[in-house]
């Protein structure tokens, strides 16, 4: 294997980690997805890399998939993708039931409140001083799954939909209903049909409470949900609706409420009666008891609206391709979305097999939460015992400090997914500090393999090799010459100097932190 800045052939850090010779211009056809392998250099090519976003990261299909379809490399992920074959690996990820996730199953024992329904949570926590506990357990479990679940693409899509249908967590009013929503709405439908997801979300007590529809009545509507349904959840702010549409959107869903048991309840007495029209949908809506059916018809209309398809497709492309995704890709994704009954899996296949995806190496910046999760994964840090999850709680706190606690976005828009929203001096310093805490073992309870184990895996003979191997292990690639030189200079050594573990071990926390600080980790 060669990299851009070195002609020195070295044993691959990831043993089987190269595509078949001649992979250039050969599509890898798997169970359903033809990935654009031809777009990537083989691992033997050694052309110089100019320092732009486009090419600072190595364009390599398994690596690109790992950076985009997962929360980041682990010490074994890249080898897994290569051994399985990128297409087959992707198919497994699209069918997460096929992927063993026993590690997470064990860890969830730490979060017993997540197995309860809303009525049970109301009984357990209704009088508790801190009712946020259920929400806090959900937030920690969410982060733990992002780090340690093997069903990585599923977790990425759970995050995508949780953010799309944002219910700020933890928050008092939804303490008993949000955990239920996570399990029975978001996770159930994350890779299913959008129409089912939308209908389930519209009947989700957490959403109905959070955006005020639960007490929106025909004679006195609260239009918050009716508006965000159009603006955020379906057709988008440029979807062509008017203020009258917003009003009728809210009126159509009056009576969609929450019962004493914390479950969805339709209350005909609260339902507006009279003709309603939103965009090109309308209904006579002349009997209160029809209100649930009328609302469901309205939601199905929205789920399949062309503007919804375009709005969601653009958002998907922003997640997986670039902050300004090509319009042609968005249109194709929208067409796929509609042609496949709003199913998510064919939509993702279209995305991952697109040339636009293949062309997008390194065009995304990791958001703060993604940065933290990717750092933990890259270091090979293992989950704590269920009896002490304080380390996970501490990581949640750090993510919050960087403005991106899991599920914690305050506005109904959720967290933005473009770099410009996340790049600032305090964000830069904050990320660097988390890297330093992580590489110094600063989170109790988490199982650190130790940085020494990292270097042993890498088996360096010289300090130059040490730097290369650590860069490869943590970021999947070597650094350009000037950046490699920066790390060697930090170690006050030269590339040819014999590696002396005893002399350098004390510097490894700072060395690995610098690798995470670098643009090779910041970009994905």
């Amino acid at each position: 294997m060669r990299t851009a800045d070195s002609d020195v052939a070295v044993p691959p850090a990831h043993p089987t980690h190269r595509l078949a010779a001649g992979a250039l211009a050969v599509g890898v056809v798997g169970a359903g997805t033809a990935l654009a392998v031809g777009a990537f250099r083989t691992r033997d090519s050694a052309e110089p890399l100019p320092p732009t976003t486009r090419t600072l990261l190595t364009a390599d299909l398994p690596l690109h998939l790992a950076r985009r379809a997962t929360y980041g490399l682990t010490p074994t992920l890249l080898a897994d993708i290569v051994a399985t074959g990128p297409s087959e690996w992707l198919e497994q990820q699209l069918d997460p039931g096929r992927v063993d996730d026993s590690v997470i199953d064990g860890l969830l024992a730490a979060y017993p409140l997540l197995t309860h329904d809303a009525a049970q949570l109301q009984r357990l926590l209704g009088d508790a001083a801190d009712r946020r506990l259920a929400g806090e357990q959900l937030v920690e479990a969410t982060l733990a799954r992002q780090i340690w679940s093997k069903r990585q693409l599923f977790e990425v899509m759970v995050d995508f939909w949780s953010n799309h249908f944002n219910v700020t967590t933890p928050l008092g009013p939804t303490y008993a209903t949000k955990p239920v929503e996570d399990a029975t709405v978001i996770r159930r439908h994350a890779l299913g049909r959008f129409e089912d997801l939308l209908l389930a979300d519209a009947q989700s007590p957490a959403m109905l409470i959070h955006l005020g529809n639960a007490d929106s009545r025909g004679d006195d509507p609260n239009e918050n949900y009716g508006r965000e349904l159009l603006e955020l959840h379906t057709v988008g702010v440029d979807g062509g609706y008017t203020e009258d549409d917003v009003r009728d959107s809210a009126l159509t869903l009056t009576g969609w409420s929450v019962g004493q048991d914390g479950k969805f309840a339709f209350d005909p007495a609260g339902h507006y009666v009279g003709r309603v029209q939103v965009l090109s949908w309308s209904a006579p809506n002349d009997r209160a008891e029809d209100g649930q059916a009328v609302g469901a018809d309205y939601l199905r209309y929205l789920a399949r609206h062309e503007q919804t398809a375009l709005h969601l497709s653009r958002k998907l492309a922003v997640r997986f391709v670039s902050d300004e995704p090509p319009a042609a890709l968005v249109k194709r994704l929208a067409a796929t979305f509609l042609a496949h009954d709003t199913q998510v899996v064919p939509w993702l296949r279209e995305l991952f097999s697109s040339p636009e995806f293949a062309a997008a190496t390194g065009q995304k910046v990791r958001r703060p939460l993604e940065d933290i999760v990717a750092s933990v994964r890259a270091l090979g840090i293992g989950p704590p015992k269920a009896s002490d999850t304080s380390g996970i709680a501490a990581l949640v706190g750090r993510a919050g400090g960087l403005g991106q606690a899991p599920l914690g976005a305050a506005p109904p828009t959720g967290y933005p997914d473009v770099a410009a929203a996340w790049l600032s001096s305090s964000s830069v310093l904050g990320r660097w500090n988390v890297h330093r805490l992580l590489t110094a073992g600063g989170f109790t309870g988490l199982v650190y393999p130790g940085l020494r184990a990292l270097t042993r895996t890498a088996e360096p003979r010289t300090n130059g090799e040490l730097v290369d191997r650590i860069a490869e292990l943590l970021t999947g690639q070597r650094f350009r010459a000037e950046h490699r030189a920066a790390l060697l200079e930090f170690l006050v050594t030269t590339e040819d100097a014999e590696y002396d573990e005893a002399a350098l071990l004390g510097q490894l926390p700072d060395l690995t932190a610098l690798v995470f600080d670098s643009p090779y980790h910041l970009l994905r």
Partner: protein
Amino acid sequence: MSADALPFAEAPASSADALTAAVERIDAEQVAAREQWSHGFTRRKFLAGAGMVAAAALGSQLVTTRYAYAVPGTGSRRALVVVFLRGGFDGLAAVVPSGDPAYAAARPDIGVPDRLLLPLDRGFGLHPALSPLHRYWQAKQLAVVHAVGGPNISRSHFQAQDQVERGVDAGDARTGWLERALATAGPGTTFRATAEGISVPQSLAGAAGAISLRGVDSVALYRRSERVIAALERLYTGLDLLAAEQVPVALRLLAEATDLQAQAYTPGAVYPAGNFAAAMSDVARLITSGTGLRVATVDVGGWDLHTNAGAVDAGDMTDQLTDLGQTLAAFAEDLGPTLRDVTVVTMSEFGRRVAQNGSGGTDHGHGNAMLVLGGRVAGGRMFGRWPGLAESALVEGDLAGINDYRDVLYELAQGHLGVGPVDSVFPGLSHSPLGLMRVG
């Protein structure tokens, strides 16, 4: 709706060759688009906004020049503090048209009774939770502009915030209004444009030299050493990346914040608890420490009170206003005589509907109130025209926003930054002077 109804630009590539060709073409297009964007715009603004330090950072060397506390030739200590009330501030809860039967009828549960209002002029009264500000009104250092809005302001949070922070009616201007105001005001110090918070708001978009921080005392790099700093500089040298632009800014901030942390500091007033107060206290510290701060932005969330806003004596609205009033008053007291050089303005993306909704809250509306507090503010006065709350005067159930928020902001920018013509800050605005700032 079928898939066929969508306009297809191209059919999906089917063969590997076609994929490769498509990738190359898309790649070239993306690079071209980025070039146009970064060099034609961001880059130029970056240079214009941050001066030589930024220019040096773009070259082969990354420079963390020490800041100058006063910029030769300008020497102004005037500062504008923009407090953005996120979520849609209810101007009709804060500043109430007393004795208006339409108001009382529209807000039977959440309206403020006349007898509890603190008197302003022209028949308006202040919510009692804002009582700490009343003495600044009486001292003629607090003004209110009511029925503020702008053309085509959305009722969507994010769209409306984007509109008012960019300060443009329409079009695709990507810079924020504060960035444009600063650009015409010329270069300055590291702290020249300071955002309190983890991120930089849209109003400063394009100002690559703007810093963000959550209090100067929190600026730190763990296990900092000269070798680590040198490595970080080299890892980000010579990269044409948006992500790389913040690195020299962060390193400059780190160096200078360390100096400030070494200076003993005690606030000149007692602030309430909470994030907003902490941010304002820090802004006061940066101003009085002579860092050259010219613009600060502070965000306050929690205003999107669709549900249970509460009656006047207790509840979410009262809590929010109490925090706002106590904090702004503490800030003014903290600055002491320096308040002469400083103005604070509050703004939001939109106001709330006049009538309360079915949940004891208010939905998204339009016309709003802005508070303007400072030593040179022509205070003790209500500014702007008042359309009233009569049914016929409302716009889709909302207070009409007949006074343009940009007129307010432009006068404040003029008074503090000495900016150029209106068009350089608010393109297309036909400025109607309000006279918010006293001359001198």
